[in-house]
C-alpha cells in the first residue's frame, strides 16, 4: 500500500508541472501580455515600463521560473480590476462554490445511486425504461438551459424559490438541483450497469440460497460490490462539477469562484483567471489522487504489482 501511494504521488508530479505550464502559457498565448493588459492606445514608453516592471523583457524560461516560485508562495499577482491579491479574491469566494458543489454531489449521490439500484433490480420494467429515458434527457439538456427553465417555472411562475443570489438554503435549491441533474443521470446509469453485473454473480445466488431477505441481498451484498466503479466515476465527475459551477453560478448569480472567473475573463483580469485555472486543476488532481488511494484501500487487487 505504501509503495503504491508513493508511486501514485510521484506520478502526479508531471501533471502538476503541466498545470503550471498551461496556467503560465494562458497569458502568453496571444504573444505579448502587454497587449492584453494595457489599453491599445498606451504609449510605447508605458509599454516598455510595464514590461520592465513585470519582468516581461526577460527570457521566457526565467519568467516561467519566477511564475512557479510565486505560485508556490501563493502569489498570482494582483487583480487588475480590484487591485487585491488574486488568490485572496478567489479564496473569499471558494466557500460559496464549495457549498454549491457539496450540495450538488450530495443530491447526485443520494438520488442517483438508489435510482440506479432500483432500475437494475426492476430491469426492463416501465420503471427501468423511464429512468433510462429521463437520464438520456438529462444528458441532452445543457445545464444553463435547465437553470433558466427552472427559474421560469419555480421562481417566476410558482414563486417557490428565489431566482438567484446566495443566502438561505432556499437560494441553494435551484442551482444545486439543476447542476445535479446531469450527474444523477450519469450516476444512475453507471450504478445500474454495475448492479446488473453484480446481480448475476455466484455469491448473490449464495446469499439468496442461504435465505437472506431480498432487501439485504440487494442493498448490502450487491450494492457494496457495485460501489467501487461507481466511486471512480464520481471522482472523475469532479472535473465536470468544477466546469459546471462556472455556468451555473453565472445563471443564478451565485457569488462563487465560477462567476468570478467568468467576470475576470470578460474584464481581461488575467491574474484572477490564472489563479482560478490553477486552483481548479489542483483540486481536481487532488480529488482523483484521493479517489485512487481509496480505491486501492478498498479493493486489495489493485496496486500490488
Amino acid at each position, binding site marked *: 500500500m505504501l509503495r503504491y501511494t508513493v508511486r501514485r504521488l510521484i506520478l502526479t508530479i*508531471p*501533471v502538476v508541472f*503541466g*498545470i503550471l505550464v*498551461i496556467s503560465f502559457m*494562458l*497569458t502568453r*498565448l*496571444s504573444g505579448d501580455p502587454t497587449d*492584453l493588459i494595457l489599453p491599445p492606445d498606451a504609449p510605447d514608453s508605458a509599454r516598455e515600463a510595464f514590461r520592465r516592471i513585470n519582468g516581461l523583457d526577460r527570457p521566457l524560461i526565467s519568467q516561467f521560473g519566477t511564475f512557479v516560485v510565486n505560485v508556490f508562495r501563493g502569489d498570482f499577482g494582483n487583480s487588475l480590476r480590484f487591485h487585491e491579491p488574486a488568490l485572496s479574491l478567489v479564496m473569499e469566494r471558494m466557500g460559496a462554490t464549495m457549498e454549491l458543489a457539496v450540495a450538488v454531489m450530495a443530491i447526485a449521490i443520494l438520488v442517483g445511486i438508489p435510482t440506479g439500484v432500483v432500475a437494475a433490480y426492476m430491469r426492463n420494467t416501465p420503471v427501468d425504461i423511464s429512468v433510462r429515458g429521463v437520464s*438520456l*434527457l438529462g*444528458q*441532452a*439538456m*445543457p445545464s*444553463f*438551459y435547465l437553470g*433558466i*427553465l427552472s*427559474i*421560469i417555472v419555480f421562481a*417566476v411562475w410558482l414563486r417557490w424559490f428565489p431566482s438567484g443570489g446566495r443566502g438561505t438554503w432556499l437560494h441553494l435549491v435551484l442551482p444545486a438541483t439543476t447542476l445535479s441533474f446531469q450527474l444523477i443521470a450519469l450516476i444512475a446509469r453507471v450504478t445500474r450497469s454495475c448492479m446488473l453485473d453484480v446481480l448475476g454473480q455466484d455469491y448473490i445466488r449464495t446469499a439468496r440460497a442461504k435465505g437472506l431477505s431480498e432487501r439485504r441481498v440487494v442493498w448490502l451484498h450487491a450494492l457494496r460490490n457495485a460501489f467501487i466503479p461507481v466511486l471512480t466515476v464520481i471522482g472523475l465527475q469532479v*472535473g*465536470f462539477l*468544477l*466546469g*459546471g459551477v*462556472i*455556468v451555473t453560478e*453565472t*445563471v443564478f448569480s451565485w457569488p462563487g469562484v465560477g462567476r468570478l*472567473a*467568468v467576470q475576470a*475573463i*470578460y474584464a*481581461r483580469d*488575467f491574474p484572477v*483567471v490564472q489563479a*482560478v*485555472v490553477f486552483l*481548479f*486543476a489542483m483540486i*481536481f*488532481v487532488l480529488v*482523483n489522487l484521493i479517489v485512487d488511494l481509496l480505491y486501492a484501500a478498498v479493493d486489495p487487487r489493485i496496486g500490488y504489482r
Partner: protein
Amino acid sequence: MTDTASAARDRKPSQFRLVMTRLLRKKSVLFCGTMLLIAVLCALAPGLIAPQDPYDQSLILRLKPPSFMEGGRDGHFLGTDHLGRDTLSRIIYGARITLLVSLLAVAVSTATGIAAGVAAGFYGGRTDAVILRLIDMQLSFPVILLVIAVVAVVGPSLTNLVIIMGLSGWPRMARIVRGAVLSVRGLEYVDAARAIGAGSMRIMAYHIMPNILSAIIVYASFELARMILLEATLSFLGLGVQPPTPTWGGMISDGRDYITLSPWVSLFPGLAIGIVILTFNILGDELRDALDPQLNHE
C-alpha cells in the same frame, strides 16, 4: 467467369449494408435520422426554409409571443426576440453555426486523437508513457474553464473556436483509440503482415485502422453531442461566434433578461439544442449496438 459471378452472389452482404439494415429496422433510428436530416437541411440552406430574414429588426414587433398564443402575429410562428427578430428563422439559421463548429471541432479532435492514440498503442514503451501523461495532464483541467479562458485570450473567431474546442477533445478520443489498438495489435494478422515485410505505416493504415474504425465512429457521434453542448455553452457565455450571427446559446442568453414576461425567447432555442444532442446520443447508442457483432440482432 461464371465462378466469380456466383461467388459474388453468394457473398455475405457487406459490413456497411449489414449495419445499415440493422439500424433502419429501429423506429428510434428512423425518427432521429429524420430530425438530423431536418437540422442538416436547415444548416445547408437556411434561406430556403426560414420564413423571415433572421437579421430583420422591428421595434413594433418586439417580444411578440408565438403565433399560436394570444397576442401572437402571423408569420412569427415562435414569436420574436427583444429586437423584433423572428425566433424560428433565427433558430433555423443558428443550426448552421452549431453544426459547422461542432462538426469541424469533432474532426479536429478525432484526427488528433487518432494520431496520438494509434502512436501510443502501436509503439508502446516511452511514446505510450509520454502520450498517456499528456492525456492525464489535459484531462486534469475542467474543459469548460480551459476553453473559455483560452477563447478569451485568443478571441472567439470561428477558426479559433474550432481549433480550441477540437483540441479540448483529443485526450478522450486518444484513450479510446489506444485501447482499441492495444486489443488488435497482438493479433495474428498483424504479425502476419509484419512477417511479409509491411512497414509500420502500412500496418497502421491498412491493418489496424479498419479494425478500430467502428469504435472511432461510435465515439465520434457522442463527441459530436458533447461539442454541440460546448458550443452552446460558449455562445451562452458570450464567447461563441459573435452577434448578430444567430447562435442557439446566444439566443438563450439574449432571452435571459426577458424571462419574466417573454419566456419563449429562451425556451425554443434550448429545445433545439436538446433535440439535436438527444438525436446524436441515441444514434450513437444504436450505432454501437448495430456495430457490435456479439449482440444478437435477430
